[in-house]
């Protein structure tokens, strides 16, 4: 029995990926098709169509199969993990995932290296903070799609005062009305910043200290719930008065309820980046490069961000939006085009190696399970 069980071990995921890495792209030709996996509501839309995709097809003759299949990094990774581990192509030539998952997939050899000679618009038009990021040095595997800020959202009418720091989420006055995030990196990183820890040099002891604070916050009955995407509904329903939040969501919510505010904590907020990347052995890698290059034209970037309201990696889009009728508020919003003083308050997640990730996850899990 034991021998039989032993025979079905799970092979090291990164080792068998190494051999694939040097194989290069599957083709150097444009095939005329692009299978693009993205998150819901993450591209401009008008009259039931996506203008950017139509413009792209007109300009390049490449048909786009656009699929809004990504609900969360974890679950999407779960669905593509097996074929990628076996070296098989997945159904998509282009995917959009968050920076830390880019780092993991790069380590595992699950992503194709980008050919930057085909990405002239990125080199010319991307903002400086989007080049050579800590999670993907030299933009080897990825270039940004949109980014956003993790900070605090609060309902000014219900709190009766402004929130400026993560410590406000520990105020017993609002016991049972505070939301936190199930996303380990967001919650832990904001807490580390509150404690004055530089994220890149955070140690396991720092995270243990954060864990104690979070456990205490639960014990004191301050936290109502640890939320995923559904925090936005809870905020809109007034089940909670303040929560950790993502900038783009709050911009949408304030349209319905002007009392809702988003703030980058004085202790520091997180700038996260969702990136375009090409999965290993994708069938249409050159078509994917064409698209990545296409969206880095300032007018196309403006068209996308004008609708999705996250942070655009192309600074020149701001001027174009300011001159477009009806888009002045977006162009002037510091949550879409952060001001320089806001940028000084923004930090990036620490890039965790696998052991660290597991240790941090274990500590955070103990908070989540109560």
């Amino acid at each position, binding site marked *: 029995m034991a021998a039989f069980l032993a025979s079905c071990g799970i092979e090291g995921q990164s080792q068998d990926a190494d051999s694939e890495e040097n194989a290069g792209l599957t083709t150097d030709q444009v095939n005329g098709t692009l299978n693009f996996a993205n998150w819901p509501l993450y591209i401009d839309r008008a009259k039931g169509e996506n203008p950017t995709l139509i413009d792209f097809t007109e300009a390049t003759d490449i048909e786009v199969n656009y699929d809004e299949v990504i609900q969360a990094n974890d679950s999407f990774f779960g669905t593509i993990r097996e074929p990628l581990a076996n070296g098989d192509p997945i159904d998509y030539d282009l995917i959009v995932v968050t920076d830390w998952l880019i780092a993991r997939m790069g380590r595992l050899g699950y992503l194709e290296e980008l050919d930057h000679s085909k990405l002239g618009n990125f080199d010319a038009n991307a903002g400086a903070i989007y080049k050579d990021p800590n999670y993907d040095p030299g933009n080897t595997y990825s270039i940004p799609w949109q980014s956003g800020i993790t900070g605090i959202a609060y309902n000014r009418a219900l709190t009766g005062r402004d929130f400026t720091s993560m410590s406000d989420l520990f105020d017993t006055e609002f016991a049972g009305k505070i939301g936190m995030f199930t996303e380990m990196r967001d919650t832990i990183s904001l807490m580390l910043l509150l404690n004055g820890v530089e994220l890149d040099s955070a140690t396991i002891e720092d995270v243990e200290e954060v864990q104690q604070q979070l456990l205490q916050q639960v014990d004191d009955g301050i936290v*109502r719930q640890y939320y995923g995407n559904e925090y936005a509904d809870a905020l809109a329903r007034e089940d909670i008065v303040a929560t950790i939040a993502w900038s783009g969501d709050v911009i949408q919510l304030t349209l319905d309820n002007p009392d809702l505010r988003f703030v980058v904590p004085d202790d520091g907020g997180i700038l996260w980046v969702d990136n375009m990347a090409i999965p290993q052995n994708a069938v249409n890698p050159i078509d994917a490069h064409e698209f990545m290059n296409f969206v880095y034209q300032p007018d196309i970037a403006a068209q996308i961000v004008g609708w999705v309201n996250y942070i655009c990696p192309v600074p020149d889009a701001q001027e174009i939006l300011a001159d477009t009728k009806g888009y002045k508020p977006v162009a002037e919003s510091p949550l879409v085009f952060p001001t320089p003083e806001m940028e000084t308050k923004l930090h990036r997640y620490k890039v965790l190696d696998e052991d660290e990730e597991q240790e941090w*996850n274990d500590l955070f899990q103990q908070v989540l399970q109560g």
Partner: protein
Amino acid sequence: MFTMLSTSFQEGTFEGGFTFTGHWQNYTESFAAFDTQIYRSLLYGLIVTVATLLISFPMVYWIAFRGGRRKNLYLLLLLLPFFTPFIIRTLAWKQILADNGILLGSLKNAGLVPEDLQLLATSTAVLGGLIYNFLPFMALPLYVALERLDHSLLDAASDLYSTRRQAFFKVTLPLAMPGVFAGSLLTFIPSVGDFINAELLGSVNTTMIGNVIQREFQTNLDFPTGSALSFVLMIGILVGVFLYARALGTEDLTG
């Protein structure tokens, strides 16, 4: 299943690979770390089973005995909400039970409940969601058992001078036992492993073992721990069901 059994005896990491060691460590460690969640899930499952039994028994008894020609209509009404998918129904409860939602908001405005009453993110909401979602699994087997009951047996009982109360306990209830047994299994097993209700209606303090297993597999990529916990849960349920079957003596009932 063999893969899962094998995985539960492995050690290692996702990127470095998992190797078989044959140690019980995953079991002992994960049980020590998550015993609260395991006991909580078993307790919730028990409460849900008893509650669905108490709610559905009078309901289907009435339909089966007093339903007359409209039996099928009543049964349809009972099942109608369950034509909507599981998740949608649970999400709907989230809207209904919101602090200032359609239910609590109106009650608070009328001054019938305290201003700070909260149902969402409590164990009450999770148990309510579970009971609601698993009600048909108890009601239908019970209905089948009561429907099939031969009414001449009850006539015979009253001919033999039994009161209606005696007839119920000596005839109806014993003959309904196969339905109670099947219904209990169909309710208890899935509600112990459920994670949707705890995820949507609960909070940190209502985390069930299903949530833990889901997180181990999806977020932490710790397959050995997830597998070990799944096995603990499975064995726990098997033992429970076995004891339950022994106590009820199903051979007599179903055979």
